């Protein structure tokens, strides 16, 4: 609970700092926003560590092969990083760059998902034949 309060405090301080700096030095406002969001994300990522350990345990017990879960985790990570940086560019007002990052993220996720799709199709062919 107190972590949430800490994160809210950091967010408010970052917002105020960004607004103040926006008048004085607009280009620095983006960097202040970046620093604040990175600190919050690092705190959240540290909290998430334990959750994924529990998921690993569950996946092993269900007998699904670990490879699929690893790929799903990777896709979640890539999706999150893409969304983080795209929002950052949107904050800075450079919308075209945000779209490029989103496109790149989608392509990378697609490339990672291809093996899974192949497995699925092979299973389906196996059933039909």
């Amino acid at each position: 609970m107190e972590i949430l309060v800490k994160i809210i405090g950091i967010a408010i301080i970052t917002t105020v700092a960004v607004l103040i700096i926006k008048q004085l030095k607009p280009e620095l406002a983006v960097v202040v926003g970046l620093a604040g969001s990175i600190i919050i994300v690092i705190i959240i990522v540290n909290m998430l560590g334990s959750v994924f350990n529990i998921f690993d345990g569950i996946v092993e017990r269900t007998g699904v092969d670990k490879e699929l879960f690893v790929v799903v985790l990777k896709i979640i990570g890539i999706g999150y990083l893409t969304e983080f940086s795209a929002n950052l560019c949107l904050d800075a007002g450079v919308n075209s760059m945000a779209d490029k990052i989103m496109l790149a993220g989608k392509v990378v996720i697609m490339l990672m998902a291809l093996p899974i799709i192949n497995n699925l199709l092979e299973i389906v062919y196996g059933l039909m034949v």
Partner: protein
Amino acid sequence: MGIEIILKIAGIGILIAVVNQVLKYTGKEELTTFTTLAGVAIVLLMVLDLVSELFSSVSSLFNLY
């Protein structure tokens, strides 16, 4: 892991603004671009290690590396 980095960057921003004002009044108008560049460079270097820490923690969590 706290707000000191944010306040440090905000402080540098305010410092640059003040220095530019002083330079403007003393007539050295052309130096303002260099002080602004220096300030932005310092701030980016400070944020650089934050970004690397972010990417290492995220990639270790989602084992993306």
